[in-house]
């Protein structure tokens, strides 16, 4: 940045010299002091619901193994093939697992009574008791076959099911709300557990999520994590430097020196990609790039075989992604910078012209120093938005070819919300986004340091 001593005299005039800060305490809000807070209260509710709560939940979820299989609201205790597998492999409890997974359906008095209470057909239940009391079956379908053999069999499937549901005496595939319920059922089933087995069962039988730091360990172990991180940093900073700040500055400065009419026209053109629906905008890029598209048609006579130019190589894919994002992103910086340039007093330009400054000197000594604030703002804002934006990448390359353009935010989305086999990893996805938040905050702090934020916000010396 420019040192004050090297500035020409017309550039050292501070804008803030013209502004006056009212003496402290002069503005008295009086009784309306809290009015603003009250007015903002409804907004506060929304801010909490839609901004704060998701961030807090993401933070919490990041330390869990939550997934489609564990559910979000909580789990149950269940003896099943899935839960018995770790009991065998981790704890070596093969015999216990075999006994627990035994299925037994017994026609007993308790079951008959329960069937009556559940609204089962009384005649059928009585006949079932007469003919099958104390008989056991290894499947519920066995009980149902017995019920269907009765002369008083219920006429509907539901009637049969109401009765057959009451005779299960085993614990396999039953969901218990608490560990205690499970242990009671196991004990009723006639299996005595020692302390170690009780402990092990509590671990393996729970179907819900638990708190863990495994997500972060996995993240470090996975070979693609570092690649995704490098991809992200490359994507963010290349787009930011080339387009969102760099090209935006070029646009705003060049249009500043144009007559108002054409300047407005050019700015409007650059706004078009921003007002085009993203899906259509990316579709047009795809039409341009695919193997029967414009590029292939134009380049074929020059000896380039038709191909999908966007996905042909990682370099191509990156070029397209940065162009797609950059062309949209530049317009925002352009608007902010243009209005900031407009706010520079014309007297500075006039004075510089009298002193014989050329356009380059004007840009270097007047415009850029006055744009430090907007540049800082755009840099931080766009960094954060690029870090979290993946919609154009998802639509254009979906992280391809071969994961070459997979950035952190896209990876988060894919892990947490898009899995072809239906196994959505909410916990791991949340952990990934937590890392993204940390990266965002760190980068912002670095910017504040780089741009010397304290000096930017220091009270004017003249006052």
């Amino acid at each position: 940045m420019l040192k004050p001593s090297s500035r020409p005299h017309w550039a050292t005039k501070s804008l803030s010299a013209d502004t006056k800060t009212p003496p402290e305490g002069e503005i008295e809000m009086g009784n309306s002091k809290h009015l603003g807070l009250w007015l903002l209260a409804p907004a506060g509710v929304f801010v909490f619901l839609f901004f704060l709560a998701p961030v807090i939940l993401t933070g919490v979820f990041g330390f869990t193994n939550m997934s489609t299989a564990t559910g979000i609201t909580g789990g149950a205790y269940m003896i099943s093939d899935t839960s018995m597998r770790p009991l065998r492999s981790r704890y070596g409890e093969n015999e216990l697992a075999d006994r627990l997974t035994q299925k037994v359906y017994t026609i007993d008095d308790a079951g008959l009574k329960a069937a009556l209470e559940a609204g089962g057909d009384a005649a059928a239940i009585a006949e079932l008791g007469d003919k099958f009391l104390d008989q056991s079956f290894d499947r519920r379908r066995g009980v149902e076959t017995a019920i269907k053999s009765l002369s008083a069999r219920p006429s509907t499937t539901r009637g049969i099911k109401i009765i057959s549901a009451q005779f299960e005496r085993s614990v396999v595939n039953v969901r218990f709300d608490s560990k205690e319920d499970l242990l009671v059922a196991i004990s009723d089933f006639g299996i005595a557990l020692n302390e170690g087995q009780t402990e092990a069962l509590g671990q393996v039988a729970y179907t819900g999520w638990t708190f863990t730091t495994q997500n972060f360990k996995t993240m470090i172990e996975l070979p693609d994590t570092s690649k995704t991180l490098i991809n992200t940093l490359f994507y963010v900073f290349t787009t930011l430097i080339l387009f969102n700040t760099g090209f935006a500055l070029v646009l705003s400065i060049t249009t500043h020196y144009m007559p108002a009419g054409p300047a407005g026209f050019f700015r409007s053109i650059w706004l078009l990609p921003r007002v085009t629906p993203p899906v259509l905008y990316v579709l047009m890029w795809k039409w341009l790039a695919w193997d029967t598209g414009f590029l292939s048609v134009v380049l074929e006579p020059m000896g380039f075989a038709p191909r999908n130019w966007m996905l042909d190589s990682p370099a191509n894919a990156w070029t397209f992604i940065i162009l797609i994002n950059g062309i949209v992103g530049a317009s925002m910086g352009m608007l902010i910078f243009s209005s900031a340039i407009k706010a520079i007093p014309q007297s500075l330009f006039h004075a510089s012209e009298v002193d014989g400054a050329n356009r380059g000197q004007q840009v270097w000594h007047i415009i850029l120093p006055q744009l430090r604030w907007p540049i800082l703002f755009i840099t931080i804002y766009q960094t954060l938005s690029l870090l979290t934006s993946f919609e154009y990448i998802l639509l254009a390359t979906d992280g391809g070819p071969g994961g070459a353009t997979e950035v952190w935010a896209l990876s988060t989305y894919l892990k947490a919300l898009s899995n072809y086999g239906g196994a959505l990893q909410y916990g791991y996805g949340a952990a990934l986004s937590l890392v993204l938040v940390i990266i965002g905050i760190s980068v912002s702090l670095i910017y504040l340091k780089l741009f010397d934020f304290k000096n930017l916000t220091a009270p004017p010396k003249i006052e």
Partner: protein
Amino acid sequence: MKHLILRSAAMAIALTVMTSGAVFAGQGKTYQISVWAIAGPSDIYRIGAIEIAADLLEREYAVRGEPIHINIEGKPYTQQDEFRQGVTLAAEAGTAPNIVVASHIDIAPWAQSGLIVPVEDYVDLDAWPLNDIYPNLLEITSFQDQVWAIPQDAESRPFFFWKPHMKAIGYSDDDLAGLAEKVRSGDYTLTNMLEDAKKMQDAGLVEANKGFWPRPTKGPDYWMFYMAFGGEMEDGNGRLLLDKTAMAAFYQFFVDAVELGVIGKNHIGTPWDQWHGALTTGKVGMWQGGTWQFAEWTGKYGMDFFANAAFSLVPGGGGNGRANTLTQPLVYLMTKQDDEDAMGIAGELITIASEPRINALHAINSAHLGISKAEETVGLYAGDRWTREATPVLLPFASAQPNNVNFGQYFEVMFGGLQAAWTGQKTVDEAIADVETELKAALGDKIVIR
């Protein structure tokens, strides 16, 4: 005055008629049954079959003298991600639909989380029509020794050959007629296929990179190539299985195909309409697709299928490998609800919707395969050449993805590795090493690595 009396009388009569109507309509309990389905435009009978079943069931109850009313609220989804998010979040909020029509691979995670209940607790599998469903399909809907769902349809992912090009490189009509059997017996392998694809390109019948086109997006179809080289997705004990040799051979096959020039390195990502357009007009020599795509090819793309295409299982890769095909049936699932009565009704609706005549409506309308033996004898089904010819060639040899809580993660890692090798981002060895590391990190002892 007379006028007034007449008007009052008319009003009274009208009121009586209206109230009696209301009383009539109010007889019996009313059930609101919601059905959410993953369904494209030709899959209207995924929900429609339940509507037909509701009509029949209302009549059955009326005949039995216990009238009920059933209102079906259907909601079709076309996007898998949106559908899964919708169903899981609705379930967490306690507003899950009564019946869900989803892929069978959703069974394991949804069963584990308690979102769904075993359908066998609400239907009679030993009575018609459910006792007639193909046993291998019921096997696919079972998880942890319980039947969780009733198959809604079946399909298969065959291999296709463009007949005129095959003839141009020397195949006779008889050769083509016997090709499916040669593939099945292992006499025609993926290596032969690559050679033939290359011949077609060299003869100028198809352009470079268009000798062989598999599915252009992520999909379970790619497991068939893993199985073609001897891979298995699960060991015998319900644990996921990574066979590194088979996985490497499968990745290598696609790398070789790229090197040979019969397929593009960026084939994944080809837009669907470009894919359909090319293979229905003879611009592609051989391809791998789905039985249900027959409807689209012969309808939207106007393809004369039987004149131009021969089909078979996906050829084996030689050695340990085997010719195979994969079926990913959609299934009727029941969610956990507070109202046991409504769950009973849902079970009865699913049972009726699985009757051959009703299921055949979906099978033929969407070019899917049937679910039961009796369905083969339903006129509509038997009269359809595609289902009649495809069913015996494919369905008996179809395997399915395992119902395993962690299978979805394995799937993504497998496909990530394939893409990295195929597009040249990693060598096959690097890709396999990364797949192994990733599976170990993500799944630990839940996967066996050989």
